[in-house]
């Protein structure tokens, strides 16, 4: 099936391997990938700061870019949620309302797309490591993404999955929150990292690279010795 790829701005610039792995996995699942190279940002930073007009301005560019799409997939819970959950509210009562509602309907978070749209859980992956899962809040609570990553990871050969007790607790990134309230963000990162450390896992996996960047940043400076990895990268491993 034809899939338009929506790559969050920070994955594009800072963690392109996540995007590359996403392409690899979707192709393996039989998708033809279209990547509109003019894409920039979903507008979430402006939205989270309370600037609706600016959000609309950025969002309109997204609506233009993806207007011919049948399905839009993003390896990010928070960015997919921005489009799926918040675009309808942001554009309500504007001339773009119908377009926004349409884009919302056809946008999918990566793991949700694989499991619930394509009906695929086994990507033929192999990842012989001990891994614990961090549930990014937007994916978890805005989009109901919780079982899907686990269903996918369980099918990965030689993987050892272990749940951390704070799996569903916010890591503390929260986008602009990390910049505005760094002390609190850091404290929350500490709780997440210590919980991951208690599992003795080698890797922390998530569907959100922004969370992982925050967790890795804290762990590198303070411990534990853990590596963060995106779900797509595990599924792409063979």
């Amino acid at each position, binding site marked *: 099936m034809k899939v338009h790829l929506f790559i969050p*701005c920070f*994955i*594009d*610039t800072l*963690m*392109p*391997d996540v*995007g*590359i792995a996403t*392409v690899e996995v979707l192709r393996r699942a039989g998708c033809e990938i279209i*990547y509109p*190279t003019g*894409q*920039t*940002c979903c*507008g979430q*930073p*402006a*939205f*989270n*700061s*309370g*600037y*609706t007009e*600016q*959000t609309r*301005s*950025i969002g*309109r*560019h997204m609506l233009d870019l993806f207007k011919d799409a049948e399905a839009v997939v993003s390896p990010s819970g928070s960015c997919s949620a921005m489009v799926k959950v918040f675009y309808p509210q942001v554009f309500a009562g504007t001339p773009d309302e119908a377009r926004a509602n349409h884009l919302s309907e056809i946008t999918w978070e990566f793991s949700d797309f694989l499991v619930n749209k394509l009906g695929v859980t086994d990507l033929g992956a192999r990842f012989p490591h001990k891994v614990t899962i961090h549930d990014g*809040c*937007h994916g*978890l*609570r*805005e989009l109901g993404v919780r079982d899907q990553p686990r269903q996918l990871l369980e099918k990965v050969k030689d993987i050892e999955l272990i749940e951390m007790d704070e799996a569903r*607790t*916010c890591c*503390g*990134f929260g986008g*602009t*929150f*990390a*910049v*505005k*309230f*760094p*002390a*609190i*963000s*850091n*404290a*929350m*990162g500490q*709780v997440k990292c210590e919980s991951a450390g208690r599992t003795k896992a080698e890797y922390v996996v998530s569907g959100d690279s922004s969370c992982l*960047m925050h967790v*890795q*940043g*804290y762990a*590198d*400076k303070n411990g534990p010795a853990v590596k963060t990895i995106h779900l797509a990268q595990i599924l792409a491993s063979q």
Partner: protein
Amino acid sequence: MYRGHLARGWRRSRGPDAHGTTMSRSTYEQPSTPPTDPPETHNGRLTTTRIPLKQFKEDAELAAADDPQRLFVRTAMRNVANTRAKTEAMFGSIQSARDVAAAIKWEGLQNIEAMLLQFEENATKNGINVHWAADGPSVCNQVIEIMRQNNARSVIKSKSMATEEVHLNHALLDAGFEVVESDLGEYIIQLRDEAPYHFVFPSMHLKRGEIKDAFDHKVSREESAPVASDDPEALTMFARNIMRQKYLSADVGISGGNFIIADSGAIAITENEGNARLTCGVPKIHIVVVGIEKIAPKLEDLALLQTMLGTAGAGQLLTGYNTVYFGPRRRNENGEGEVDGPEQMHVILLDNGRTKLLADPALRDALRCIRCGACLNVCPIFSNVGGHTYGTTYQGPIGAVISPPMRGTAQYGHLAYASSLCGACTETCPVKIDLHHHLLRIRQQYTVAKPQAAEKSAMNWFARTMRHPLLYRAGARVALTFDGLLRPLHGTRLDAISAWRKRRSLPGKPTQSFTSWWQSGGKQ
């Protein structure tokens, strides 16, 4: 411990929503300081020069560095969560229960005028005196008027956040009346001259040693012999023994209310200790102060509302005492009937900013709140910064949602930003308030109420850049290059992301962006 700093700073003179409750002069040895009026009474202008956001950040930083305290709070919250999970597992369907509870409270809110009038009519038939108060000073004046008309001198109180909002105890003390808080947690924090840490568990931040200190230093020897030890049992019995005499001697009992029951003209009160049972049962006069949003349409609704309150708040299927008061002691013309009970019952229906919330069509559902405290219990911000950092009567997510509309968006809207929007609060709320999305709505209101020119310019620049792919690509390249060039400045004040770098490391710089990879054929 940092708490000394915050506790010292957290007096009733600090900030427009600062509050304090105090002991009767017989037990509290230090003189009280005069209350600061909330800004509503001064033409909307703040009466202090404190900058809430700056103070919040300072307090948050101190609190976030107090690892033992954070662990203490986190452990307490985890225990509540475990107990709650066990209790919720008993329900036929806890998610459906949330739907029905939300619908019941919503029905009350949507018809709030009719419901309050129905309550007033039924309550009056029951012999209850119903009063209405637009704001804090009005409530205080009405209570004082009731006291004077009855030549009353002393008050015993059970826990009421509505009375905390309006500084009732202060007003009573200053008018020369004696006031005692009977709830153990409230009693303790009063002795320490501290604000409640959590509106359900006001003293949860304290260790037994600190509580014993308060008892040792703040309760006079005439009042009681010293407490035997810092054992929780001994501490509790100490307070129990003091209170027993107060119940018997107080002229007036003042309580809050958990639910205003429209079809019965009654007030329902939920508690664990039994102090409200005694406050509302023994003194000759019973006064209820209750927010107008506490409407429950029917008596039978309590079957669900009281169980949700107990379960969500502390994992108790039902809290220890759930009592419904239909009026004062009922006797016929011959004096036959109930053997005891107050001669008079008054209910003061309080607005104090609730109609402002009601007037906001996007935030209205926040008035469904039953004050269970569940959102505090699951909030990672709360457990990392603690309840005193908020600087408001109500802490946590619900506090951040209702304080800006009720007390001023410009003054309190910053609380809505102190959240990662994780949504745990919305997920847990027994009456399905859209809490974390409300924080987003308040942020939108804040940019209008308190425009930040620099931030707005930055957002405009950001929007312009993101509309133009070439600008975005160029910007990304420049930022990455620049960061390398500016290596000497890393960690200094000129470092734009020094706050991140201070505590975390950064990802390494990739050789090419995803878009470049794609454009060059999409091969590794």
